């Protein structure tokens, strides 16, 4: 049996360049305003009087890190359970796919996904999402997002191998807890990473990254 595939994201290496976003956009010919992959920049910080010169301000508790996210091809996909037409199916290798012929475009999957991974294509009236470049996977190649990553922060492979090498962490702030859908994702945390659900920061550009 084919081992389920998933992502490893090295948040300590991701610099938020969005090359993965652009590669995905190019591979899937996505129009402006619609992406399967997003990079969420998360951070916080404040200004305090400079200890050496109180007339000046100095940054305090400043941190920021980036998380490149797309469909997590979850072990328990909420989108698949929500889909009323059974258009969303999971392959033996874990890839969650949408059968366009069955999709009614009701968008319920979009609401059920905690990662905002599904998007509606108004030109076809159907839902769309990352398919982990299934055509490339079937040809033994690497998905474009991982292949294009300039810092090698993104990696696709069998989940058991990724977990054996990188651990079990599957969520950081601002992502939701992995308990909801058991995402096929393992994260190497940034040094300033904050735990999911208990982060003090905010997404720095929600209009762009969380639309």
């Amino acid at each position: 049996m084919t081992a389920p595939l998933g992502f490893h994201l090295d948040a300590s290496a991701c610099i938020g360049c969005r090359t993965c976003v652009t590669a995905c956009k190019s591979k899937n010919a996505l129009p402006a305003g619609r992406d399967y992959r997003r990079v969420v920049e998360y951070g916080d910080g404040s200004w305090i009087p400079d200890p050496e010169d109180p007339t000046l301000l100095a940054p305090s508790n400043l941190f920021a890190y980036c998380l490149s996210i797309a469909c997590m091809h979850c072990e328990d996909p909420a989108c698949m359970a929500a889909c009323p037409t059974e258009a969303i199916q999971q392959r033996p290798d874990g890839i969650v796919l949408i059968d366009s012929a069955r999709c009614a475009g009701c968008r319920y999957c979009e609401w059920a996904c905690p990662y905002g991974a599904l998007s509606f294509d108004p030109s076809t009236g159907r839902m769309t999402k990352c398919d982990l470049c299934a055509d490339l996977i079937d040809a033994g190649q690497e998905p474009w997002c991982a292949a294009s990553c300039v810092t090698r922060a993104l990696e696709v492979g069998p989940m058991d191998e990724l977990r054996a090498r990188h651990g079990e962490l599957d969520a950081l702030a601002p992502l939701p807890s992995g308990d909801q859908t058991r995402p096929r994702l393992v994260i190497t945390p940034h040094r300033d990473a904050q735990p999911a659900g208990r982060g003090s920061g905010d997404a720095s550009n929600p209009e762009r990254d969380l639309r």
Partner: protein
Amino acid sequence: MNLLHEWPLVLFTLTVQLAVGLHLALLAVGALPRARSGALVAGFPGSLSGAQDPSGVGAEDSARSGGQDSFGVGGLRGRPFLLVGVLMAGALALSLLHLGTPLNALRTLANLDESWLSREILAALVFLALWALDFFWVRRRRGAAAPEPSDPEPSDPEPGSSSGPAPGVSRVLAWATALAGIVLVGVMARIYMVPARPLWDHWLTAAGFFLTTLLLGAVVAAAHVARRPRPEIPAQTGASPIGQAASPAGLSPAGAALLALAVTVALAQMAATLAHPLTLEVAAGAQGTPLVALRLLLLLAGAFLLVIPLAASAFPGLSSAGAGRPGPWVVAALLLLGGSELLGRMLFYAAGTAIPF
């Protein structure tokens, strides 16, 4: 904040809830006890002739049929009853506008095992099918009874018992339809109570949907009842305490009961809206504060307008001061409360669909 983002769903959910609420209101009015005479106040799904209907809800249809309701169901088998089915059918048609690919609409029944959306569509179809069965059953019976319009109406031996040609079947269908409607509203709320949308995932979402159902149903039913004067009640039939209290202002007992219900539900809806986490989130935004305030103000104003005819019933002096005709007050309240529910549902979708992180 784009209030029109999900307008087909706004209209679909409100129309479904109005249809279910109207059916429940008609059924509740039909279950009101009539004192001493041993019959029912209203003919839904009971056995009272509209001409003797102290609720006033049967006046229209009984007048149309010459004062007799020969098959044993009263006036709420008329326009409001028809309206329930029309609304539900219209709501299902509206739901197609939400779909990106309406041609695949029938496939939405495919995942009943897991998808609450599939279950919602099934529940809506069951509701409509039960209503249609009831409707055509009544029409068939009415048609069968029509050739003999001089037949005396069968007596009703005890409260709630059936009379006329097999009204018991109709009663069962009416209650089954009500049950399907309650399930439908519950399932509809459950769709939005998903962990991925924390602003929706709260028991107050379900409470709000049920309160909207009761509010819209009660007010629309009350508007139907209140737009005509209360018919005279023959002295020998007796009248319920509600009927006696309402009599001076021309407000029928059913109308008074519906108005009292609507006022109570409107106040409960205000409380539920204020306590809902989504309201707090919307109100925190610069654009949201005035919209939330408007939503609550419309609810309060609508409830106040409904209190006026109720107060006029309780204090006859107010009737002579111009507050006696309930119709305009109820219609005005319907507009305010309907507007509030429309705005509330728009805010529900505008705020709840956002990615939560």
